[in-house]
């Protein structure tokens, strides 16, 4: 996947854009040294992961220095370089639940501080509120006096105990963060409410897709039947239980309707049972886990894309599907209504009946041939979301953040206590003080002066440019002697 991305990246790096870049440099746009922190990164797959990857590449292209910090995935630990010298630190931290690391608020400080110092980071950009590492990094960065930015990729409820707790933590984590980025207006509204934020410091920058990856190919579909494609992780959040209600109902009504389900998860068993009970083995195909590069090949085989998510901040899957020229049927939840214009999407309520109606409407449109051709849909969607645009807007946020002051310790404590409620505020103020003392201790143990400055691979003064490395060396295994 990375390879393909890189391929297209090189391809999109047209002369015009590089001229732009140079011009920008010549006119002296500010460059920052940015550290992206999240628990979620490749080889894990998902929206956050590709968001970080693409955004980093576009920022590097704009002349910033970007590094990524995440936790170790199995054997992939240590320091790796991706294309264009994008450096990734896979830190050996224990994974607790759902690829998220365990947090004690302190144990990651020595390593993160070492990295921030050796890479001369100026802005710490954390991603995803599910990632405890991202929150840890925000906390440490504030202690160290670095500017902080946070991107929220998901929506939460307010009702149950777990979301009340998470929201409280989010309040603490974001109360002195310089700037927050959300992926849709719904998400912004949600985040502002959850974390009790000033809406002024929350920006909306949507996700993007690489339109060149998702091109339509009508020859791949079988026009004698109608195929509904579902590509998502098979988990509760994605509404797989709704899907299991829809499949038998529609299959009875339309004998030429086929379902193609890509993805893996604990709810797969539900679909398998439905398939067995109604004898639909020839009409419902479960493809299992998909590699990212296979997603397009699955998408182009269908006519309709069905999304049954129960909550979604910004649904990238429907943009990808629309980019492949499919008619999209989706639930009207979260930020989904903002993503695509009315004529490209059929929105339904998250119930079996409503979704069935929506699908029937889409089928009727296909039967009658009133739909625009895949090419027209693709050309329209292509213009909506691009990573270059995302990077440009993010860079503006960075510029703004860089001018702001980081709260000094006393103000930070004041803010924590005044902003997060008396009990939580006091506890976390205490944590902040402890963390500061720990930092002082670390600075005494290994002063900043004896930390080697990392050789910069990217950015304007990067060592890793083509002239030094005429040919690519084979990839080699990294090893950590003792860790």
């Amino acid at each position, binding site marked *: 996947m990375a390879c393909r991305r890189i391929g297209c990246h090189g391809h999109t790096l047209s002369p015009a854009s590089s001229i732009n870049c140079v011009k920008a440099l010549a006119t002296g746009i500010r460059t920052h040294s940015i550290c992206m922190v999240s628990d979620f990164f490749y080889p894990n797959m998902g929206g956050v992961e590709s968001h970080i990857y693409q955004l980093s590449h576009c920022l590097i292209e704009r002349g910033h220095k970007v590094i990524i910090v995440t936790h170790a995935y199995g054997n992939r630990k*240590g320091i790796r370089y991706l294309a264009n010298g994008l450096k990734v630190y896979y830190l050996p931290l224990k994974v607790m639940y759902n690829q998220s690391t365990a947090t004690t608020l302190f144990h990651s400080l020595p*390593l993160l501080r070492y990295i921030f110092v050796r890479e001369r980071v100026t802005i710490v950009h954390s991603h995803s509120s599910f990632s405890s590492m991202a929150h840890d990094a925000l906390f440490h960065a504030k202690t160290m006096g670095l500017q902080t930015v946070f991107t929220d990729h998901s929506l939460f409820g307010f009702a149950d105990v777990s979301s009340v707790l998470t929201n409280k933590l989010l309040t603490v984590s974001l109360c002195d963060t310089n700037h927050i980025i959300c992926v849709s207006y719904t998400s912004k509204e949600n985040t502002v409410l959850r974390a009790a934020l000033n809406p002024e410091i929350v920006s909306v920058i949507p996700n993007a897709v690489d339109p060149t990856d998702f091109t339509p190919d009508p020859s791949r579909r079988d026009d004698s039947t109608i195929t509904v494609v579902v590509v998502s992780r098979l988990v509760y959040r994605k509404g797989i239980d709704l899907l299991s209600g829809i499949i038998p109902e529609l299959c009875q009504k339309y004998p030429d309707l086929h379902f193609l389900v890509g993805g893996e998860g604990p709810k797969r068993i539900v679909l398998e049972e439905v398939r067995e009970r109604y004898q639909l083995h020839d009409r419902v195909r479960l493809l299992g886990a998909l590699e990212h590069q296979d997603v397009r090949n699955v998408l182009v085989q269908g006519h309709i894309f069905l999304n049954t998510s129960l909550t979604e901040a910004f649904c990238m899957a429907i943009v990808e599907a629309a980019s492949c020229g499919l008619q999209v049927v989706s639930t009207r939840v979260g930020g989904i209504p903002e993503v695509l214009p009315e004529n490209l999407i059929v929105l339904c309520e998250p119930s079996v009946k409503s979704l069935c109606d929506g699908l029937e409407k889409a089928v009727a449109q296909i039967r009658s041939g009133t739909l625009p051709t895949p090419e027209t849909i693709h050309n329209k969607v292509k213009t909506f979301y691009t990573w270059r645009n995302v990077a440009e807007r993010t860079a503006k946020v960075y510029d703004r953040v860089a001018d702001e002051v980081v709260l000094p310790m006393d103000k930070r404590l004041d803010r924590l206590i005044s902003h997060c409620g008396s009990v939580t505020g006091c506890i976390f103020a205490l944590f902040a003080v402890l963390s500061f003392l720990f930092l002082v201790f670390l600075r005494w143990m*290994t002063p900043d002066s*004896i930390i*080697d400055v990392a050789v910069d691979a990217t950015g304007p003064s990067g060592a890793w440019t083509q002239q030094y490395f005429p040919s690519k060396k084979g990839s080699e295994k*990294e*090893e950590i*002697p003792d860790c």
Partner: protein
Amino acid sequence: MEEGVYRAVSGGRIALQRRQYSASCREFSVRCPRLQLRSLSAATCSVWLAAYGLFVLSQNSMVLSAAIFITLIGLIVYLHFVKIDHESLLVIGSLGIQMTSSYASGKENTTFIEMSQVKDVVINEAIYMQKVIYYLCILLQDPGEPHGVSEVVPLFQSSKPRLDCLVEVYRSCQEILEQRKT
């Protein structure tokens, strides 16, 4: 013979000695940070104090003699198996690369890698304990495929010099390795 003083990753002083025997034969020797009298006496004192405490509690003089014994044995084991005095790297252009680590007691541990197995010598980054450090390593040629690397052998593992020292060694090594290729 040239000598330079550098710093280790931990902040201690290390000395890099460079001997040039001939055009294709060089030796680099890194002297590790010396054993601190402070830490040695602190360790000894703590063991003896603990022993004395036990002695006061139990009134058994065996404890004291055992403490002396433990300290002595511990010191010997430390000097013989743990404390590395200096590490050297001998690069002989046509033969190979030899790594030697000498313990404080004089014990030597030597590994010789033939030139045909050496693919390259590079500087790499690694996460070590709570630090991110640069280290010099030898890449071994994978016999199966010409571009593959079968193993990475880290150098100067106990002294862990900082980047400036590694760059010195790296440049010298590359000079010799380049002769091999032509």
